[in-house]
């Protein structure tokens, strides 16, 4: 069997990122942001490989951010790791409960139900004046073991944390896909009957994957919240989830690194599109999406693979 080069490549990427972040300070924010969203898209990639498209990952993205946010805002917790863990747990728990329901659905119904659920959270948050309604609220600057991660002079520490987190998640996902459970993803997408006739429960497997995706979205949301310093219910609105799906398609499911690359390109494109044509950047995004669906069904990553091949 072929030697697995992905882990070494990922670690090399990590080193490269840390150096880049050191020499290009003004890109740290965008980079951190891209990783935060990339984590969410990584979860979406897991679902996509299982043949499921969630139009409601915003639910967990937002939930994670609010879990971290409330902890930071009302209990004054600023330790990034603690906040991220709590966010992951909160989102995971919610996904575990809602998954009982969602694991039974496929295709359009899975997408629509997940969308409806995220819109319900949106409605609840808009209602809750204590959490600032649609204005949301600010997060205190994150720290790690008492050391500040963000200051006027440098956001490098937070960037480092994000990079480590992102690469760790990518590695974990990479290995997960090589476990028997992970291998079920393409199997379920291709043929659920056969999976059942091999003695595995499709529903249980889907449930687990949904929870993993939820946890990743929760952590991603919390990381984004820390980076931006502000969170609001918009994170649960269906267009946010649509954006994640967009990025997932853009990236393609070819590699666990694709979501991060995709998110970064997306943020980059959007920034410049906004700068140069504020009135037609959606038009640009839509066109790009169509082109990719038509010409690169496997996403941008397929370009990278062609290069390798």
């Amino acid at each position, binding site marked *: 069997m072929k030697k697995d080069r992905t882990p070494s490549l990922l670690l090399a990427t990590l080193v490269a990122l840390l150096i880049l972040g050191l020499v290009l300070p003004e890109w740290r924010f965008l980079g951190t942001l891209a990783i935060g969203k990339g984590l969410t898209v990584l979860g979406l990639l897991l679902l996509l490989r299982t043949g499921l498209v969630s139009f409601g990952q915003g639910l967990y993205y937002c939930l994670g951010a609010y879990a971290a946010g409330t902890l930071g805002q009302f209990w004054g917790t600023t330790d990034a790791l603690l906040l991220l863990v709590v966010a992951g747990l909160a989102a995971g728990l919610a996904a575990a409960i809602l998954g009982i329901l969602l694991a039974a659905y496929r295709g359009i119904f899975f997408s629509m139900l997940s969308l409806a659920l995220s819109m319900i959270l949106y409605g609840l948050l808009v209602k809750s004046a204590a959490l600032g*309604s*649609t*204005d*949301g609220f600010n997060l205190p600057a994150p720290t790690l073991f008492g050391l500040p991660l963000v*200051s*006027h002079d440098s956001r490098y520490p937070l960037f480092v944390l994000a990079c480590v987190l992102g690469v760790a998640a990518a590695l974990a996902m990479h290995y997960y896909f090589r476990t028997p459970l992970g291998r079920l993803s393409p199997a379920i997408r291709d043929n659920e009957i056969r999976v059942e006739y091999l003695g595995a429960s499709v529903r249980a497997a889907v449930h687990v994957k949904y929870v993993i995706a939820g946890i990743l979205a929760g952590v991603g949301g919390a990381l984004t919240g820390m980076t*931006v310093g502000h969170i*609001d219910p918009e994170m649960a609105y269906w267009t946010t989830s649509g954006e994640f799906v967009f990025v997932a398609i853009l990236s393609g499911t070819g590699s666990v690194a694709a979501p991060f690359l995709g998110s970064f390109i997306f943020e980059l494109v*959007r*920034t410049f599109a906004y700068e140069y044509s504020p009135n037609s950047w959606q038009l640009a995004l839509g066109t790009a999406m169509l082109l990719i669906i038509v010409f690169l069904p496997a996403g941008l990553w397929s370009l990278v693979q062609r290069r390798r091949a």
Partner: protein
Amino acid sequence: MSKKLIVPVALSLAAIAASAQAQEAPPFKIGVVTFLSGAPAGPFGVPARNGAELVAEALNDGAMPAPYATKGFGGRPIELVFIDEAGGTTKQVSEYRNLVQRQNVDAVVGYISSGDCLAIAPVAEEMRKLTVFFDCGTPRIFEDASYKYVFRTGATGTMDSVAAAMYVKEIKPNATKIAGINQNYAWGHDSWNDFEAAIKALMPSVQIVTSQMPKFLAGQYGAEISALLTSGAEVVHSSFWGGDMEALVLQGAPRGLFSKSTVVLTTGETALPKLNTRVPEGTVIGARGPYGPFAPDNAINQWLVKSYEDRYNVRPTYPAYKMTQAILGIKAAYEKAQAANGGKTPNQDQIIASFEHLEFEGPGGTVRMALGKGHQAVLGTAYGTVKHENGQAVVTNVRYYPAEKVNPPEGVKSEDWVKTALK
């Protein structure tokens, strides 16, 4: 009083300095952030952008009336970079960083959405860049935190609701049934809560018969209007803006909502040029400050109305006023600092120092940076009633409310002040 003197003196000094260094002076670059797309663009974003363009050009040509007749900022030409505020807070924060890091602007002026203001303020502190909010309404910004680099030249939303309540008390002293219809998001919630508290404090006998909170951009208000009509409310408060307010007027008028009860539209002035006589007589409208039809008859206001109508052939609405006010505020602060700096180009800290507690003239009259340790402006405001005169909707029965009557004193939170002090 002493401050009142300083400004003109400073300006004349600056004028001399200006003419001296006008030539080789580097431009003062301002990032202007307003809605250029999405629902708020029409009613708020575009008028604000127009205002900014107008003022910047006039200042660069030295075509503004006194005390702003000097070119640019103390001789430095003003350069504007426009950014779309649409797209949510996450995007705004990254756009703000781009403005500061890649465009390296000297100051940022903008933000209509309170959510964006809340998100930007701490970033402005982190990036240490002079940032002036011109419109967003939430009092939370300077009441929940204090900032060095952040200023707001527009008054808080609390002022609108309190003044609205005062106006209602004046024109409907015997009203007992009050209702509200506000958008179901922060702006709507805050506006209604302030108004409810204020009206209860001012008119203890009133009862709230219903409070409708339809979804933002819902568009269809048939059921809400029925509910308001059946509630028998004598006064209906609404902070609707833009398309929602216009839809409410269009759908409510034929159903007698505006004749059965006095409807108070706190942002109604923005719709007047567009809807004109479609806004029924007797409707109470505000402009979130002494702007538009409520603006004093001073030179700056005359200049704004004239040049705005000449270029965009429509009356300027309050966003244009507030944007003008913000840029003039920076100019005043800049030139005051320049004067204090012996005519030499002031650094940012000096500008900020002179901005704090500054008192300057705007198209809406005198603006005092009185709250939030000198970072939050207070103004008077006004409300009036719509009347149709030969095919034109005009505002009559206008009442003015001085700043100190409709704003809390320094150090007091708006919501506490509304509940206690108004009694």
